[in-house]
């Protein structure tokens, strides 16, 4: 599914992604209506980059964004216990290690 299909009426809508510094990811901050990408960037600059720091803007047509459905959020849930992937799970071992 693309976002335009999920969101009826969103033809002509561009999602806006702002990057605060080169060290940050681009983050979806909102949308603009525009006939093309160039105009979308003009409008996005005015609405989403007039105060907050910004080094780069992306605009992407809703129709060009493929998305999972919230209905299927289950499939993103880990199927097994994933605590072994988190450092916090290893505190006991660290204590043992430091004691030596």
């Amino acid at each position, binding site marked *: 599914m693309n976002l335009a299909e*999920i*969101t*009826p*009426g*969103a*033809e002509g*809508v561009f999602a806006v992604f702002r990057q605060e510094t080169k060290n940050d990811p681009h983050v979806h*901050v*909102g*949308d*603009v*209506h*525009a*006939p*093309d990408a*160039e*105009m979308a960037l003009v409008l996005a600059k005015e*609405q989403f980059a*007039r*105060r907050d720091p910004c080094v780069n803007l992306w605009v992407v047509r809703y129709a060009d964004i493929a998305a999972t*459905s*919230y*209905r299927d959020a289950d499939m993103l849930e880990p199927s097994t216990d994933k605590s072994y992937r988190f450092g916090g799970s290893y505190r006991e071992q660290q204590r043992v290690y430091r004691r030596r």
Partner: protein
Amino acid sequence: MTVPPEAADEPEQLGAFEARLAAGDRVEAGEWMPARYRAECLRLIQMHANSELMGALPEREWIPRAPTLARKMALVAKVQDEIGHAQLLYRVAEDLGKPRTQMIEELIAGASKFHNVFHYPAETWADVAIIQVFVDGAAMQTQGSLRSCSYAPYARVLKRICYEEDFHIRLGLDSFRALAEGTPRQRAMLQDALDRWWQPIMHFFGPRDQVSPHLETMMRWRIKVKTNDELRQQFLRQFVPVIQEYGLRVPDPDLRWDETAGQYRYAEPDWEEFRRVIRGEGPRTKARLELRQRYHAQHRWVREAVARWALAA
């Protein structure tokens, strides 16, 4: 744009929806929702969007007359934020099924509502300070509470809106302080503005909620998070001290803190006036709508130029 036909709410779907909300889950634009939930969210967000757009007008009148360049720049930034809020909110509202152009047309035709406070004149420079501190301060109570609204796209834009409203209150307090610590004439002007704005601000939150199945549903669906009087009390606790700190007079002689009840007692405002104003019979309703209509017509060429942009390239 067409609204997808809304199937009559299946009891089974409704049950699953209610269970999701009860578990703290939030609703996204493309998902199934009861027709009434959709309608109530649209009504709330459209009214909020209208209010941002109309709310820019009273202060906008003071941009050319701001007393210093610094105040003028701050005011321009503030007014621009309000228009930006309208853009964010109409974008959220239209995903609930009503095109943005239709919402703008309804607004300028006087067919949809906006907040009572924006139907009043901004007579002096002190009104600007009072609006920024107390009107934005009142709006902040409602909007702050709605950040936990169940309709996720609304809750998300409210984060940015509240951040910017906080800036408006801060710059308002700066103007407020300058006038409150100024000459006797400046203090008198500030007190006069406060006197005139007090009742509309008390009105802002709406009458005390009556217990009703409607209210109960709105709270359960988290389209409303706090009752009108909870929000009014929260506002009074935060802003009555600001008035007192600068030795100004609270315009309600009956206002007092009730220690045992843990809340403010206040004189009941004239609710008849409130109803008149939100019906569109406020002192400045007609003039403000006419201004919007005039600019809407005047700016037609801009909208057309933007739409033709891609063709011209």
